[in-house]
Every structure is written in structure tokens, then in C-alpha cells.
């Protein structure tokens, strides 16, 4: 027994340095590119950030391939979207990596859904006859900029625990990220005279318009919120139930999806209903990600005259979406039809 322990100890000391070789800063691995973009902004040059999903793929349908296992093997921090988005491949990657520091429950495992507002948590027991419904809520929460803001703080907090010496820096980086996000959300001019946190509070209370008009600043709303203002209250159609958070934040209503049920491709019967509905309610926008086929949207657009907006919902999904803020910029400009 002693001999075996010694052999293992010798092997461990021989291998140990190899494992840590070249690990200067922290290594962060995220499941999606959006989390990677926010993590990069928070970590600055103190960490190397890599994403498993590139932004051009659907994070729900990945294969636990050897390259992913290698990335997880070397990670100090694993950040996931959670809410079962990665359920088909995450555990084989974490198991395969043999990295006990990033397993669920460990300090090196951050589930970003813990720190955000989650929508569409089923109030009744779900069955799979409802399609691919996520029982803990809709996982596409990064499309609400407020959640992006929350994620940055959660990442800074966790990085601070992993590297206490740089905790203040991570906090400062997160604050800078929030500041730029607030400027894009409300317009730089408004954020100059109003605290971003206060504006968000008013947004979440639904009293921003009143608050600003009372302050005589109603015309000062710029940024994404300003650009989206003309679309407030409008109904849209989306391909998948992936735009709920974006729609909710900017006051749009998703009246229907092209998919009859989440994860089930459009059927002719369902599309006929969607066309009826779009005609009856005068719906003018069909919103979908580039990786879905455009056939169904084309059909509905043909019959109703609605405008098809194809835009990625992930960083890296299109050339312009280089980071989180650029992604939101791109989505807002596509939906509003302004280049």
C-alpha cells in the first residue's frame, strides 16, 4: 500500500508541472460565445477565455468532441448558460476532462442562470408533448442587456474568488463594461446626467418614460432603447422561442413562432395558422437566426407582406457581432431596419 502510494506520488510530482505548464493567467472556458465575450471584458488580460460554441452553432446540439474535453481539462473556470441548454453534451465533456475543479458545485463552475432574471418558467408540470420546453425556464436570457449586466458582475465576483489579488481589477472591469452597456442602452447623453443603475431600476419598474418626462429629459432617450421605441407594443413572429428576453425588454410581443412547438420544425398546417394570425393582427416582422432555413419565413412573408429579419443571437454568429455590445447593436439595427 505504501509503495503504491509512493509510486502514485512520484507520478503525480512528475506530471504536475506538465499540467500547469504555460498556465500564466486564469483559463476560462464558457459554453457559449456570449458568455465568453462578457468574461473577456471582465477578465481583461488576466485570463485566457475560450468558448465551446462558436456562435454559428446551436448550443443545444453540440457533440462532446475531444477538443472540447481538452479545453475543459485545462480550465480554471467553466461558465455555462444552464437551464438545460447544454444538457446534451456538457457532462460528458466535464466527466471526460477529469477536472474536478470545474464540476457543478465546485468554485470553478459558474452557472450564469443563477444571477439573472429567468422568464417562461412553466407554471404547470411540463411534458415532452409540449416540445423541447425547458422546465427551469427559457435559456436565451443573454439577449436581455440587463442580464448581460448581471452576468458581468457574477463573473467578476467569481474571478475575484479564484484570483483574490486581482479581485478589485475584475470589479472595475465589470463596472466599465456596465458603463458602456448603459451608454449603448440609454444613449451616452442620458447616462451622463443620470446614473445607469437608476435608469435600469426605472426600466424594470416600467416607469422610465414617466420618470424622464417628469425630469424633462424624455427626448434624451437614445441608444438601443431609443432606437427600439417606435417598435414598442408591436407584435412579431419568431422562428424559435429564443427572442422572449429581447422582446420582453424592448416591449415587443412575440405573437407566434414558426415552429409549432419548441424544437419541432415548421409544418404546413401550423404555418397556415401563423399566416392567418399575422394577417389578422397585422404583424410586420418575422425574426429568426441565420442557422434556420428561411423557407417557412419566406412563405409567411409572401402571404402577409411581413419583413423578414435574419440576425444572429450570439457573438460571432455574424462578422459584425464581435462582442456582446456589438451583438446587441447588430440585433437592434436589423430589427429597426436602420443600417
Amino acid at each position, binding site marked *: 500500500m505504501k509503495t503504491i502510494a509512493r509510486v502514485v506520488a512520484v507520478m503525480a510530482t512528475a506530471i504536475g508541472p506538465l499540467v500547469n505548464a504555460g498556465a500564466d493567467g486564469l483559463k476560462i472556458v464558457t459554453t457559449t460565445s456570449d458568455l465568453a465575450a462578457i468574461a473577456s471584458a471582465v477578465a481583461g488580460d488576466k485570463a485566457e477565455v475560450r468558448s465551446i460554441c462558436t456562435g454559428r452553432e*446551436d448550443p443545444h446540439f453540440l457533440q462532446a*468532441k475531444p477538443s472540447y474535453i481538452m479545453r475543459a481539462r485545462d480550465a480554471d473556470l467553466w461558465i455555462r448558460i444552464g437551464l438545460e441548454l447544454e444538457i*446534451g453534451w456538457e457532462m460528458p465533456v466535464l*466527466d471526460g476532462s477529469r477536472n474536478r475543479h470545474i464540476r457543478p458545485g465546485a468554485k470553478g463552475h459558474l452557472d450564469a442562470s443563477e444571477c439573472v432574471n429567468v422568464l417562461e*418558467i412553466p407554471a404547470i408540470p411540463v411534458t415532452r408533448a409540449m416540445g423541447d420546453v425547458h422546465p427551469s425556464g427559457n435559456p436565451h436570457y443573454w439577449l436581455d442587456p440587463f442580464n448581460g449586466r448581471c452576468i458581468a458582475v457574477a463573473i467578476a465576483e467569481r474571478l475575484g474568488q479564484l484570483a483574490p489579488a486581482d479581485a478589485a481589477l475584475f470589479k472595475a472591469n465589470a463596472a466599465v463594461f456596465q458603463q458602456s452597456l448603459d451608454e449603448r442602452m440609454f444613449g451616452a447623453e442620458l447616462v451622463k446626467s443620470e446614473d445607469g443603475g437608476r435608469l435600469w431600476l426605472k426600466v424594470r419598474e416600467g416607469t422610465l418614460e414617466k420618470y424622464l418626462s417628469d425630469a424633462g429629459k424624455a427626448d434624451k432617450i437614445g441608444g438601443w432603447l431609443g432606437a427600439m421605441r417606435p417598435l414598442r407594443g408591436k407584435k412579431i413572429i419568431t422562428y424559435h422561442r429564443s427572442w422572449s428576453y429581447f422582446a420582453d425588454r424592448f416591449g415587443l410581443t412575440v405573437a407566434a413562432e414558426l415552429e409549432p412547438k419548441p424544437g419541432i420544425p415548421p409544418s404546413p398546417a401550423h404555418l397556415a395558422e401563423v399566416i392567418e394570425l399575422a394577417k389578422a393582427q397585422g404583424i410586420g416582422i418575422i425574426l429568426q437566426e441565420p442557422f434556420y432555413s428561411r423557407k417557412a419565413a419566406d412563405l409567411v412573408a409572401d402571404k402577409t407582406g411581413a419583413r423578414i429579419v435574419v440576425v444572429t443571437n450570439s457573438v460571432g454568429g455574424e462578422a459584425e457581432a464581435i462582442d456582446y455590445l456589438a451583438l446587441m447593436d447588430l440585433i437592434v439595427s436589423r430589427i429597426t431596419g436602420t443600417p
Partner: protein
Amino acid sequence: MKTALYRLLAAIVLMAPLIGLAADEGTSTNTLEELRQLRLRTEALEKKIVETRPAASSAPTLAAESTAAQKPPLSESAMVRGWRSFQSFNPEISAIVDMFYHADDSADGISHVTEEMSGFGHSHSGEDHHHGETENGFNLRHLELQFSAEVDPYFKGSAIAAVDLDGAEMEEAKIETTCLPYGFAVRGGKFFSDFGYINAQHSHQWDFVDQPLIYQLTLGPHGLNDIGAQLSWLAPTPFYLLAAVEAFQGKNDMIFAYCGEDPLPHHNGPRVGVGWLKFGPDLPGNHGLQAGLFGAMGKDQEAHDGNGDGDSDHWLDGNSMFWGADCVYKYNSPQPHGKGDLTVQGEYFNRRKDLDMIANDLNPALVGNHRIDDQDGYYLQAVYGFCERWRGGLRWEQVGLVNTTKLPDGSREDFGSSYRAGVMIDFTPSEFSRLRVQVNHGGYETAAGREPATEFFLQWMISIGSHGAHKF
């Protein structure tokens, strides 16, 4: 000597988690501390609910909201979520129902043909191999009941019960470490050996209805699945390299059979050792590749009834071994519902049985002589998602490229090779159900010459319960 080696191997494999536990003392206290903190946090949150409930109509204080570090107030939905995550302490449970319709044009049924294939067709331990036989008409594979959960911060466990009309059988029951450092992991229990690619896959994961011919002929319908232990190591290399050694009791009645029946000698377990390597380059984008090498060796015994009177009359004892290579390439298309996905996989498998005649009631002069069987085979298959939710696949197989038997009387028999070609199309309505149609055509080398056979399958399978995740 070899047995002693296997035993040492098993001892090392089994000791490793204990060493890991000892080295991991710090973690356990950490976990306790974390749990305590978690409880404190929960108490604080509960207090907050009580505090905020009556004042829900009044606006939350600005100070609390404007510091961005604040989490959103705990809503009712968040409480629901809390309950749901509590429920996930229960093991994940799922069940798989897998049925198919089968028809073939051979006179005695395809199972009979494959059992009679030259060089492969021995009934080794005197048992009949009814298990896994395909009948014309309806077939129901065993119902797979799966349970899995993290046991504690150190281990995870899973079990699969296979229930069929004849009763229940334990397909897998395994414990795995999650706490070992330096890329090590230890597994124990009853499980599928991870050598090659398809051996560790359950039948519902296969891309074709049936198992590759070479596996069926050399390892049987369950592949190499046995009681034992595995030590594996993920190397800290810039490419993916996973290496493992496994020790098994030796209960596979096709290649590592043990009857212990008089006059055969007694062998202590573990009687089988397996080693394998898997390699994968860090391919960019949506490409994934994994290649492997494997080998195994173990004790093997056979009792035969040469004159057909119902009693064994000659007995063999010795070693069987196999080696081979596997490779799988996957392209994961960015298009939804599997459109454009491509999987190409192939495995080569070579086995040798080297057995000693221990006793022979019919011809005692042969005692002490050897019988050596050399057989091999491979399969190569490709599956492509030609349309959303639809896949098509082709499989080509050959067995017996090497197919010789050196008999105890010194004579040598050379048999020919057999082939099988398969084509399948499947439809996957959701992640939890699949329909598949498949046609096989093969030419099987038997004592009666080459027997052609065409098979038709129509398969329907579903998975209920928790959402599974599959390895590469």
C-alpha cells in the same frame, strides 16, 4: 504469472481512489464550509422574502438596485426554481423502449446462419446462445432502465437494468471517481469495456439496428461487458490522449469463457486484462476526430460435445486475445435538426484463441495439443443528415479476411471471408424518438458454402425520462 499480474493491476486500480481520498482531505472540509455558507445564504434569503413580502407594493430601495452587484429580488418563480433544483438530488431516471420488425429470406433464419459461420460458429461454453437472437416478425429489445447521479463530491454512480420477457438483468452498475487529480479516474462495477468505439455504446445509440458482425461473432450481443475495474488517464498533452487499463472477471462466453467444470483447471479472477488508447487532434470548427488502439488478453475455456450425446467429451483451456483499431470522424453542421451532420466510423478487430486440449474422452491422444483460431473483421459506416431530422447511412462489413483454425490433430483449416452491406434511413421526430428502416444483404461463409441472405428491419424506439447526454 499472468494471473498474478492481473491481480496486481486490479489492486492498483482499486486502491487509487483511496489514495485520492486521502490526498483530498482539504476538499471535504471545504465542502462542509461551503454547505454551511449555503445554508446561511438560504436563511438570509428566506429572511429577505419575509421582509419584502408585506412591502411588495412599495418600490424597492434605490440603493439596493443601483449597485449592480445586486441579484434580482427573489421572485416566486425563483422559489419554484429552487424546488426544482432540489428535486434534482434524486437520480436521473430514464427508460428506453426499442422494438423492431425483422424479415429475412434465409431458410432457417439469419441467427442460424451467423451461428454456423465457418471459423466463428462455435458454441463455446456449452450454452445455447438464444440471447440477442433476431426473429422474423416483431422483436422487442430489453427495456433499458437507467439511473444515474452524483453520489457525493468524490464519486458518481449509474446503473442500468435490462428488463425483458425472461426477467431482469444488470446491464451496468458502476461507480466512478470524480475527485482524482492529474487526469486520473477509476471505475468499478459491471460495465462495458471502453475499448474501441462501439463496444461501450448501448444498442439504442447505434446508427444501425444491428451490431457490427465482427462484434456479434467474437464478443456476442452485449460486447465486452463484465465485472471489473478500470483506471484511465487523460494526458496533459496538447492533443487529446486518453489511456486506460481494465481488469475483468472474465465472464464473456464467446471469448473469455470460464466454466471451471472438471477436468478444466481452476483460475482465480480477474482473468481478463484490457488496455486501450484514444487519440484526438484539436480540430478547428465543427470537425471532431478520434482514433484508438486496443488489445485484450484473458483466460478462455471451452467444453465441447463432439459426439452429440448431450454430454461434454473434450475440454480446452488457454488464452484468448484480441487487438484492433478504431476511428471516428464527425462533422457537426451548424444547420438545425442534424441537417448536414456527417459521421464516418470504422473499426478493425482481430482475435486469436490459443487453447490446450486438457482432456479428451473420444481421442485421448490429442491431450496436450493446441487449437489455435485466428479470425478478424472490420466495418466501415457513414451516416449523413440529408434533411432536417432525416439521416441516411451506409455500412460495409467483412469478416474472416484472416480465418484459420489449427486443429489439435495438427491439421489446418482455411475458411473464406463473409461480407455484409447495409443501408438505413432514419427519422428523428424529436431528441426522444426515432424510426428507422434498414436493409442488409450479406454473403455468409458456412460449411454449406456461401449463403446469401437479405434482411429487412423497421425499428421504432423512444426514450422517456431525463434528457440523456452522449459521449463523442
